[in-house]
C-alpha cells in the first residue's frame, strides 16, 4: 500500500471544502477557482483509479484500513470493486461539470456554495468507498447536510419544504439502517465474539436466522428503497428535484439516488442472502410498478424538471429490477444503468437548468417553439432525451436491456410487464418535448439565446460518454462483471437459490472465489480483533 489513493479521493474534496470555507467571503472568484481545482483534482484521481483498476478481479482493490471508532470496532476501511468503481468515477466527473454549470446560476454566497458542494462530493465518495457499515452510514447520513443547505440556500421558491422533506424522509430510512446495522454487528458479536462492522466479515458470517434476517433486510431496505427511490417511497424526489439548484439536481439524479441501488447490491445481498432471495419478488413487484407508474405519472407533469424526476423513478425501477433478478446479467445491467443514468439524466437536468436560466420558468405550458429559437440546445436535448428513452447506441439501452433480460431469466412475468415501460418512456419524454420545443416561438421563448461554449462544455461530454459506453460498453462491463458474478455466487453458496444462467462457466470459478473470500473475511475479522486489542 504505497499511496492511499482512495483516502485521497475522499480527502481532496474535504480539504477543498475546508480551504474554501476559510476564504474571505468577498472573493467569490477565488472560491470558484479553488472549487474547480479541487473537483478537477478529485476527478483526476478517479481517472487514475479507473486506469489502474484490475479488470476481472472480483476482490476489493486499493484497500485502505485504519481503526476509527474503537468502542464499536468501527474501522475506516476503504476499498473499491467493479460496482463502486464506476460510481466513484462518475461522481468524480460529474462534480466539475456541476460546478461549471453553476457558473452563471450561482451569484450570491458563492463561497458557501462551493464549500457545501465539495463536502457533498466527499460524502458521496465516502459512501461508495467505505466497506465498514458504520463508516458507510456516517457518510450516508452526512450527505444529507450539504444537500440540505444547497437546496435551502440556492433552491427555488418552495425550497424549505423540499429540503426538509429530503432530510427527514431519507433520514427515516437511514435511522432504520443504523438500527439494523448495530443489531447485525452485535448479533455477530454475540455469536462469534468479535465486534466488527466490516461488511466482508459480516457477510462471511452465517449465523442469522430466518425472521431476524428478514427484519434486518427490511431495515436496510427502508434506507435503500427510500433513497433509490422505489415506489411508493418516491414522492420526495420530484419535490426535491424541482427545488434544488441545477447542480444539485444533477448530482441527486446522477449519484445520490444510485446509492439505494448500490446499497442493495453491496450490502443487502451479501449480508442477507436468504432474505434477498426470499423477498426478491416483493422488490421486483415494486420495481415493475415503479417503472410503469413513474413513466405514466411523468407524462402527466407540467413542470419539465418533474418530468425528468419521475422518469428517474422509472429508471431506478429498471435498476432495482435488474438487481433483484439475482442474475449476473441483471446485476450487470443494473450497475450499468447506474453508470449511464447520471450521464443522460444529468445532461437533461443541465439542459433544463439552462432553459430555466433563460426563461425563469420550468412550466412546459410557458415554453413552446424552443426548437426555433435555440436549435443547439434543442439538438442536445433530443440527444439526451433519446439516450434517456433507451435508444440503442446510447448507454441507457444496454443497462435497460440487460436488466430486463436478467429479470426475464429470473421470472418472465416481471420482465414482460416491465418491458411495456419502454412504450411509456417514449410517451413521457416525447410528449413534453413536443409541447416545450415544437410549435411556434413567441415572446420570451423567441428571445432566448442559444448555448454558450461553457454550457456546451458542460453537457456535451456527458452525452459523448453515454454514446461511447453505449457503443463500446465492454470496458465497463468487464469491470462490473466479476463483482456481479460474485454477488450471484454468494447466493448460490449460502442459499439454495440457483441462478437460471446455467450456461455460465462461472461454476468452475466457484471454488476459487470462495477461497479468496474466506481468506479475505478471515483477514478482516482478524484485523478487527486486532483493532479491539490494540486500544
Amino acid at each position, binding site marked *: 500500500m504505497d499511496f492511499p489513493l482512495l483516502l485521497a479521493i475522499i480527502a481532496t474534496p474535504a480539504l477543498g471544502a475546508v480551504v474554501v470555507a476559510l476564504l474571505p*467571503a468577498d472573493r467569490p472568484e477565488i472560491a470558484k477557482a479553488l472549487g474547480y481545482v479541487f473537483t478537477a483534482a478529485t476527478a483526476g484521481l478517479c481517472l487514475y483509479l479507473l486506469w489502474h483498476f484490475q479488470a476481472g478481479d472480483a476482490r476489493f482493490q486499493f484497500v485502505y484500513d485504519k*481503526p*476509527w*471508532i*474503537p*468502542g*464499536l470496532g468501527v474501522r475506516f476501511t476503504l476499498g473499491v470493486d467493479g460496482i463502486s468503481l464506476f460510481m466513484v468515477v462518475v461522481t468524480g466527473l460529474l462534480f466539475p461539470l456541476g460546478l461549471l454549470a453553476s457558473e452563471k446560476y450561482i451569484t450570491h*454566497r458563492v463561497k*458557501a456554495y462551493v464549500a457545501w458542494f465539495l463536502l457533498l462530493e466527499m460524502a458521496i465518495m465516502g459512501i461508495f468507498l467505505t466497506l465498514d457499515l*458504520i463508516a458507510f*452510514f*456516517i*457518510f450516508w*447520513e*452526512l450527505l*444529507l*447536510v450539504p444537500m*440540505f*443547505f444547497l437546496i*435551502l*440556500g440556492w433552491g427555488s421558491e418552495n425550497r*424549505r419544504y423540499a*429540503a*426538509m422533506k429530503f*432530510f*427527514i424522509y431519507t*433520514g*427515516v430510512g*437511514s*435511522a*432504520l439502517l*443504523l*438500527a439494523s446495522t*448495530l*443489531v447485525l*454487528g*452485535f*448479533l455477530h*458479536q*454475540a455469536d462469534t465474539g468479535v465486534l466488527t462492522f466490516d461488511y466482508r466479515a459480516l457477510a462471511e458470517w452465517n449465523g442469522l436466522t430466518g425472521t431476524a434476517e428478514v427484519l434486518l433486510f427490511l431495515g436496510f431496505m427502508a434506507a435503500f428503497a427510500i433513497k433509490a427511490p422505489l415506489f411508493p417511497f418516491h414522492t420526495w424526489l420530484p419535490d426535491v428535484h424541482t427545488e434544488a439548484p441545477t447542480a444539485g439536481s444533477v448530482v441527486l439524479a446522477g449519484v445520490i439516488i444510485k446509492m439505494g441501488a448500490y446499497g442493495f447490491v453491496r450490502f443487502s445481498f451479501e449480508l442477507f442472502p436468504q432474505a434477498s432471495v426470499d423477498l426478491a419478488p416483493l422488490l421486483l413487484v415494486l420495481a415493475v410498478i415503479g417503472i410503469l407508474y413513474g413513466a405514466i405519472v411523468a407524462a402527466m407533469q407540467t413542470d419539465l424538471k418533474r418530468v425528468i424526476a419521475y422518469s428517474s423513478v422509472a429508471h431506478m425501477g429498471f435498476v432495482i429490477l435488474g438487481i433483484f433478478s439475482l442474475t449476473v446479467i441483471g446485476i450487470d445491467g443494473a450497475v450499468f444503468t447506474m453508470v449511464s443514468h447520471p450521464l443522460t439524466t444529468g445532461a437533461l437536468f443541465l439542459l433544463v437548468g439552462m432553459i430555466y436560466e433563460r426563461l425563469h420558468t420550468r412550466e412546459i405550458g410557458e415554453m413552446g417553439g424552443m426548437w426555433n429559437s435555440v436549435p443547439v440546445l434543442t439538438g442536445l436535448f433530443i440527444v439526451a432525451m433519446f439516450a434517456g428513452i433507451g435508444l440503442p447506441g446510447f448507454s441507457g439501452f444496454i443497462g435497460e436491456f440487460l436488466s430486463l433480460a436478467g429479470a426475464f431469466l429470473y421470472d418472465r412475468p416481471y420482465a414482460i410487464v416491465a418491458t411495456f415501460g419502454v412504450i411509456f418512456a417514449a410517451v413521457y419524454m416525447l410528449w413534453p418535448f413536443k409541447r416545450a420545443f415544437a410549435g411556434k416561438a413567441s415572446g420570451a421563448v423567441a428571445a432566448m439565446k442559444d448555448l454558450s461554449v461553457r454550457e456546451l462544455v458542460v453537457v456535451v461530454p456527458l452525452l459523448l460518454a453515454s454514446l461511447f459506453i453505449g457503443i463500446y460498453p465492454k470496458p465497463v462491463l468487464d469491470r462490473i462483471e466479476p463483482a456481479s458474478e460474485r454477488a450471484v455466487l454468494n447466493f448460490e453458496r449460502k442459499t439454495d437459490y440457483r441462478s437460471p444462467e446455467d450456461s455460465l462457466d462461472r461454476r468452475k470459478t466457484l471454488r476459487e472465489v470462495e477461497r479468496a473470500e474466506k481468506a479475505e473475511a478471515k483477514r478482516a475479522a482478524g484485523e478487527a480483533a486486532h483493532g479491539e486489542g490494540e*486500544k
Partner: protein
Amino acid sequence: MIAAAVPIETPSVDLWAIAPIMALVATGVGIVLLRALLRRHAAVTPAAFGLSIVGLLVAAGLLVRQWNLVRDDGPLTSFAGLVRVDPFAVFLGIVVVAATLAGVLLSYSYLRREGLEAPEYFALILLSASGMLMMTTANDLIVVFMALEVLSIPLYVLAAFDRRRLRSQEAGLKYFVLGAFSSAVFLYGIALTYGATGTTSLTGIATFLSQNTLFEQGTLLMGLALLLVGLGFKVAAVPFHMWTPDVYQGAPTPVTAFMAAATKAAAFAAILRIVTTAFPQYRDDWRPIIWVLAALSMLVGAIAAMAQNDIKRTLAYSSIAHAGYILMGVYATTSRGREAALLYLLVYAFMAIGAFAVVMIAAPSPDDAKHSYDDYRGMALKRPILGGLLIFFVLAQAGVPLTSGFIGKLEIFGSVAQAGETRDYILLVIGVVSAVIAFAFYLRIAYTLVTAPDDEAALESAYSTTPRRVDGWTGLVLFAAAALTLVIGLVPGTFIHFARDAVFF
C-alpha cells in the same frame, strides 16, 4: 460516667477524595468573604471572576490527580464510605468542572452586559458545582440527597438571578417549587428504601439485597420507584420534564448553559450509581421503568420541540430528548451502556454549552429576552461565523455524522442493540426514529438562520441587533466547544477510551 461505654471512632478522612470539592467550596466561600471585605468596590466582580477561575482550575488539577490515583490504586473511599472516588466519579467530575468553567467564562461578560454584576453569582455557581461533585462521589442515599440540595438551591437562585426580568424570577420560582416537591418525593423514596434495607449506603443496600431474599418487596420497590421519580426530575425525563422548558427559557442564558451541561452530568451520576450499585438484583424491575422514561423522553422531547417558537425553549426540549438517549445507556445496564452514557454526557455538555453560548451572544435585543425564531431569522447571513456555529452545534445535537453528537448517539444505540432482546430492539427503533423526528426542529433552526426574508428591507430589520462583539472569554468557550465537538466527531478514539476507563465504580 461521662466516658462512653463504646468509644467513638472517627472515620478516616482521605483529603484527596474530597479535595476538588473543598477547592470549589473554599473558593465559593472565599468569594463571599471577598464581597464582605470589599463591599462595593469596583474590582469585586472581576476579582470574584478571577478567583472562581483559579478555583476551578485547581479543582480540575486535583481531579486529574485523582484520576491518576484511582486508576493506579483503585477507588478511594473516605468518610466511612460516604465518599467514593472512582474513575466514574472523576470522569463526571471533570465534565462538571469543565461545564462550570464554561459557565463562569460565559457569565462574566453577560453579567456586565446585563448590568447584573454581583460576585455572589460566581459563589453560587461554584457552590452548585461543588454539590455536583458531591453527587458524583456520593455513595450513600443521604449524601445523594444532600448533594442534590447543594446543587439545586444555588440553581434556584441563579435562575431567578435577573431580578429585573419577571421571566427569570418566574423560572426561579417554578424550578424551586417543583424542585422542593420532587426532592420530597425523592426523600420519601430514601425513607422507604431505608425501611426495606436498614441502610442508606449504596453498597450496603447492595450487600443486604444480595445476602437476603425479601419476602415483602413492596417497600423496597416503592422506594426505588420514588428515587427514580426524584432523579428523573433532575435529569428532566418525561413525565417529570415540564419544568425544563420554562426554566431554561427564563433563566439567564449562561445559567441555562450551565444547568443543561453540568446538572445533567451530576444527576445521571446519581442515577447510574444508584441503579447499578445499589439495585443490581432488581434490574428486571427498574429497567422497564427506565425503558419507558427513555422512550417517552426521546419522543416527547423531539415532538414537542417542533411547535416551539423560542430557540432557548427548543433547546430545552432538545435537552429532554437527550436525557432520553442517555437513559437508553442507563437502560442497557452493561458497561458499554455506562460508557455510552458517560460519553454522551461529555459530548452533550459541549454541544449544549456551545449552542447556548451562541444564543447568549446572539440574542437580538439588548436584554436576554428575545429568542423567538423571528428574531433570529437570517442571522447566519449577517453573522456567518456565529450563525454557522449555532448551526453546527444544533446539527451536532441532531446527531449528524462527523460531530460528537453522532458518536454519542452511535455508542448509545450500540449499547442498546447489544442487549439483544426484542424490547431492546423496540427501544432502539424508537430511539432512531425520535432522532429523525428531532431533525425537524433542528433543521428549522438551521433554516431560520440561513433564510433571508424575501426583501432586503425585511432582512435589515429581521436580525437587527447592534453587532455585539464576542468577548475573549466567550470566544474561548465557543472555540473550545466547537473544537471538541468536531474533534470527538472526527477522531473519537481518545475520548471513547477515556469514557471506557471511567465506567468502573
